[in-house]
């Protein structure tokens, strides 16, 4: 603060020093100030808007712990399980970093589902935020592939048989299926080649996710955040600068999320570690109960509820693909479900169906679960393809608030 006493000096005088020198050549400092300090943000964002920041931080934690794990990992069928055991037992703090990585995968997917739900509920996919929505969905798909590939790497029983089930699902695609399965696995069953490919796929996708997150955030900063009212800020009174308002709010969200994270890592690891995966992969012994990680269960439920194998695969992939069409399926000009009573009920049912499908997946769609699963699958697609396009017709005479600040004063 050498120029503390010279506040009335012209701007050119202040632009000396290393920071100004750098900024004149590569404007990272002013860009950071513009996008993360002065950046105008709606003043009424609720706790669900914390999950973007949470996801970013968890992604960085995953990359950091993942690099460490990769250094100590052997991607061969003979050596993978032993190398993970060595990380757990002999490598100093290996158990801690691996536990953070495994817990992080579950926490990341959980946060991602909440983030996605938030976008659906408050209509964050509508114009002008379609690219934000689409890049987000690309991230969802990439993260799912990354998570699946990562789960195969420890080469325990669930890793092996999970890869086997996935391979057989790919095999069910007419025409290209067997070729594609062979291309991914390198053989007719999971083995050395598939493990090596999944390892590379896991690492490459993880860093690609980081890149697409950059695009996603860039798209966000073009349009600005949506908000729980779903109306554009009318003026400066409706927004606050990102810093210190949302830096402090995100910090609180992050610390609370970290508390939950720590509780799982340190006290409830059984929630994320499947005991069966502590048995080394054995191609000759099929486990009694092959089940994917919880975050794939709703899609596994769809896969198993549909009578035909290929139909099931189409439906579970379609469950993701249909999300890409949402900005054009929804004809309503109103964004937030808060002002859309019919859509709001539909969203509630959608969440119920999604969770129900998870349980259907856990119970392999047997007996009553089969019926529940089919009802839920029908509702899931009807929600997006029928109810969502029609909901606009139910919304007549709805008056939106003029501005966020005024709505806040009148409402809550």
């Amino acid at each position, binding site marked *: 603060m050498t120029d503390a006493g010279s506040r009335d000096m012209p701007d050119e005088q202040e632009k000396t020093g290393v920071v100004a020198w750098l900024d004149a050549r590569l404007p990272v400092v002013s860009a950071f100030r513009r996008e993360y300090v002065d950046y105008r943000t709606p*003043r009424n964002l609720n706790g669900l808007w914390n999950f973007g920041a949470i996801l970013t931080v968890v992604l960085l934690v995953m990359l950091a712990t993942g690099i460490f794990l990769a250094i100590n990992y052997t991607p061969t069928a003979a050596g993978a399980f032993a190398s993970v055991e060595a990380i757990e*037992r002999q490598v100093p703090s290996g158990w801690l970093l691996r536990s953070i990585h495994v817990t992080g995968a579950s926490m990341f997917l*959980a946060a991602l589902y909440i983030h996605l739900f938030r976008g659906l509920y408050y209509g964050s996919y509508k114009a002008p935020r379609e690219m934000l929505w689409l890049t987000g969905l690309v991230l969802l798909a990439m993260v799912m592939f990354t998570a699946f590939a990562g789960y195969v790497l420890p080469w325990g029983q669930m890793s092996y048989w999970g890869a086997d089930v996935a391979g057989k699902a790919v095999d069910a695609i007419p025409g290209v299926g067997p070729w594609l399965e062979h291309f991914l696995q390198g053989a007719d069953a999971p083995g050395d080649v598939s493990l090596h490919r999944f390892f590379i796929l896991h690492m490459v996708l993880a860093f690609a996710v980081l890149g697409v997150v950059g695009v996603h955030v860039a798209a966000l900063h073009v349009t600005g955040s949506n908000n729980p009212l779903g109306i554009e800020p009318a003026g400066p009174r409706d927004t606050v600068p990102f810093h210190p*308002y949302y830096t402090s709010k995100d*910090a609180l969200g992050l*610390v609370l999320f970290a*508390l939950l994270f*720590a509780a799982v890592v340190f006290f409830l690891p059984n929630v994320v570690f499947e005991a069966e995966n*502590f048995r080394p992969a054995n191609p000759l012994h099929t486990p009694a109960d092959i089940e994917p990680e919880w975050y794939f269960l709703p899609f596994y439920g769809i896969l198993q509820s549909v009578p035909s194998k290929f139909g099931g695969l189409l439906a579970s992939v379609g469950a993701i693909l249909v999300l890409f069409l949402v900005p054009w399926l929804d004809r309503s000009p109103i964004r937030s479900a808060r002002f859309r009573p019919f859509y709001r009920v539909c969203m509630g049912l959608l969440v119920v169906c999604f969770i129900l499908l998870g349980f259907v997946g856990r119970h392999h769609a047997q007996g009553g679960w089969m019926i529940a699963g089919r009802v839920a699958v029908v509702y899931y697609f009807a929600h997006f393809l029928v109810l969502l396009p029609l909901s606009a017709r139910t919304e007549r005479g709805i008056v939106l608030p003029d501005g966020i600040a005024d709505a806040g004063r009148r409402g809550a």
Partner: protein
Amino acid sequence: MRGGMRLRLGFLLGLLASLADISHAMAQAGPHDRPPHQVWSFEGPLGRFDLSAVQRGYAVYAQVCSACHGMKSMTYGDLAAMGLTMEQVSRIAATQQVPGGVDAQGDPVTRAATPADHFRDPFANPEAAAAANNGVAPPDQSRLALVYPGGPDRIYAVLTGYREPPAAYRPSHAGAVYNPYASGREIAMPPPLRDGQVVYTDGTPATTAQEARDVTTFLAWVAQPHLEARHRLGMQVVLYLLFLAVLVFLLKRRVWSDVH
């Protein structure tokens, strides 16, 4: 607004419920009696190991179990964490012979193990293990307490549960024995423990029940060697984060005080 909040809560609770449900999802194969629950010091979120019991359990493992069961993932050096000095660990390792490469003539030789060596497998391969044990290879014990359905309670119940079979019992294969807690109430392992089978250096009477309890504790420790460090570090991390949460909450409230 309030409806939205309820919806959010419901969604989060649903996620948590499905998480919790999955943790005890493992189906137990083959009918067996329900093992009675034992009190273990390592149970629960703050559990810790009684290291003297772990050490006695190692004596049982070394003198009894290790004749048939491997513990591949463990190194002799890992035993230091149960309260042994490096000299003690080196002495234990030195009693074991492991493959030592080849001599000048190209013939395989053995050497005394070092703390960096993994536990010696009792059999050369799974086929040899099965052939020597009535056709069933004894499972590796590195993670047995985690992967065996029923966990430590059931391991203890099996070890102490051998008894006269009911009149209707017929062994399904040669060498099979009746045990109500084993899968299908039958096990290929003959009763491994009896009173006084192990010599305890700390003077604890080596009853069958004591041996079973100690070796179960040892197996639980081997399956989760960092359990105690995990719980201790967890307490520190959670306390730190709670303190930080209060500070950040106050900061956030102060920052936002001019908005609402």
